[in-house]
């Protein structure tokens, strides 16, 4: 590993993700090179074989996620990394991972779209693609770091959620945070909390691959186990055999959603800055959090009570958190490197308070001045 021991390092965000993945116990990576995420694949190609794992560069992103899901069903922690165009190709298998309940981590270092867009430039335009990228009703988890330290911490968390809920988990980086270098504290191995998927009891005679436990998650049996297991991307009964019965399908899809939805509060990670007395609330995630913090400090110097809610969990969307935290605010600002995707979600839950987007395209960062300009203009009104 690049960081063999605990301590202080100066790392790129993408590399911090890779270092955390290996510490989470990840043993398999399949991916396809794409800017600005390629360092994650390169890191895996160097460090996974040393750790006893396997790296393979597949022929495209479709097969990359397919291989990750296959690997996961053997009981191995698996991950892939991509950017928008690759995410689009992976869409098919996001649904497969949900349906077969394969724990895996998908890292998307967002760049400016649509299509090839600006290949080397950052964006935050895939907010809804994380949630609705694949067809059919489903629920996923998406986490988003705003610093290199959070890249490390949230990667660990992403693997843990994937294992706990048996579902794909997105790590929503952006080209700024993924490519940025920053001081990181790498904790001791034994101080990192690592979750492993719950296994079915090996002697169970009446084992059913999709029989959920009390948390709605089916205990896992790996391929190769004496208990024979089945993974099925088609509508299936608890035995894993295909089933197109209406009631069964309703139960299955609702369970896939509820197993995550029920624990939304635990999954919902966030940071607050001066929200206790904030009259103006900035809601942000990822790179946009950084100019927001600078803007907040400047505004507070001038006596304007600004606070920040930084969402680390984007999906499932923290509706109740937004509803409660915005109840005291008079004005809500949402800076993002897109034309208002997060904003449109916040509007749904913020009691008709004014919500102003600070939106930027072109692959350049939002500046603290961009936020301050809007802030001063709005409080003048």
């Amino acid at each position: 590993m690049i960081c063999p021991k605990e301590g202080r390092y100066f790392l790129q965000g993408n590399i911090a993700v890779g270092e955390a993945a290996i510490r989470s116990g990840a043993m398999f990576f399949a991916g396809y090179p794409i800017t600005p995420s390629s360092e994650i694949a390169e890191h895996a190609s160097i460090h996974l074989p040393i750790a006893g794992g396997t790296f393979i560069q597949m022929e495209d992103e479709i097969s990359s996620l397919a291989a990750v899901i296959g690997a996961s069903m053997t009981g191995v922690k698996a991950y892939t990394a991509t950017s928008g165009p690759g995410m689009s190709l992976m869409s098919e298998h996001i649904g497969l991972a949900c349906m077969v309940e394969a724990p895996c981590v998908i890292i998307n270092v967002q760049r400016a779209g649509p299509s090839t867009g600006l290949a080397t430039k950052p964006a935050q335009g895939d907010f809804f693609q994380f949630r609705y990228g694949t067809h059919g009703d489903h629920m996923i988890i998406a986490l988003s770091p705003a610093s290199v330290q959070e890249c490390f911490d949230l990667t660990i968390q992403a693997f843990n959620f994937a294992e706990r809920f048996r579902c794909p988990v997105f790590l929503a980086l952006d080209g700024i945070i993924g490519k940025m270098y920053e001081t990181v504290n790498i904790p001791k191995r034994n101080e990192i909390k690592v979750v492993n998927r719950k296994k079915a009891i090996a002697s169970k005679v009446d084992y059913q691959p999709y029989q959920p436990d009390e948390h709605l998650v089916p205990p896992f049996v790996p391929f190769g186990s004496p208990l024979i297991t089945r993974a099925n991307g088609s509508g299936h009964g608890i035995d894993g055999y295909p089933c197109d019965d209406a009631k069964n399908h309703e139960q299955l899809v609702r369970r896939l959603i509820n197993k995550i939805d029920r624990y939304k509060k635990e999954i919902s990670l966030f940071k607050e800055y001066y929200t206790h007395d904030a009259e103006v609330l900035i809601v942000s995630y990822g790179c946009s959090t950084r100019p927001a913090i600078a803007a907040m400090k400047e505004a507070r110097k001038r006596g304007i009570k600004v606070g920040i809610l930084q969402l680390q969990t984007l999906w499932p969307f923290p509706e109740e958190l937004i509803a409660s935290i915005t109840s005291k605010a008079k004005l809500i600002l949402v800076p993002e490197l897109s034309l208002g995707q997060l904003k449109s979600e916040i509007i749904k839950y913020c009691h008709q308070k004014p919500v102003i987007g600070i939106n930027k395209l072109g692959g350049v960062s939002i500046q603290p001045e961009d936020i301050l300009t809007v802030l001063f203009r709005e409080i003048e009104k």
Partner: protein
Amino acid sequence: MKCSGRKYIKTESLPFFWCSGCGNGIIFAALTRAMEENNLDNKDIVAVTGIGCWGKADDYLTTHTFHGTHGRAIAVATGIKLANPLLKVFALVGDGDGITIGGNHLIHAARRNIDIIVIMSNNFNYGMTGGQYSGTTPFNSITATSSYGHVEDAFDVSSLVKSAGAGYVARCTIANPHMIQQLISKAIKKRQGFRFIEVISICPTHYGKYNQMSSAVEMIKDLSERTVNFKDIDQIAPEDLGNKIMVGEYQNQEVEGFVHRYQRLKQSILPT
């Protein structure tokens, strides 16, 4: 060797969902017999399927199974094999699955010599969706989407997979079930590298009906008559070869599979 293949068959799910006269039952029986012939343990087998008629094969298996997406069985199988090299991984794909939508995965898995066995049931059309043309539909033939005759040429899949670098490539037809079993068995015994068996099959319901051959008996007879083994190729005039189906081993080479190569790589970089 006389085998029934029963221990791999979920008998309570029988009869097969496939149409009467479909070739898939013959391939399925040959596959399970070959598994038994080689004493494979159910727990060591993972059968990966895609979508299509042959993609339903996993419904009748008592091994580990993965029923995934259309065209991606080989990609899923790649992940399974590399993450647990002890498993015997079979990808059961059709011509739509294996060479049309999933053709890229097929040739790359062959090039890499991923240590899996792929059994392709090639019936020249998309049976499950109503008989549309696929990448192996012959020129001029009629399908649900080529009512005036197909304008494209077909892939010679076995030749393609051979040239992509697979260690073992063989073709046979459902007219000779024993040969299917033999070839699969040989593929299992080879233990490593990419092993590809193309089984020429029939779809009386769609392809046969569209092309004036609606009885399975008639279609199997036609397959038999057109089949030529590589060994006998010298006895046929070159001008008569066009309509023939070549069977036998297209490729049988000792290759080092991906798993072994990667393990050697890991050994070589281990810190001393």
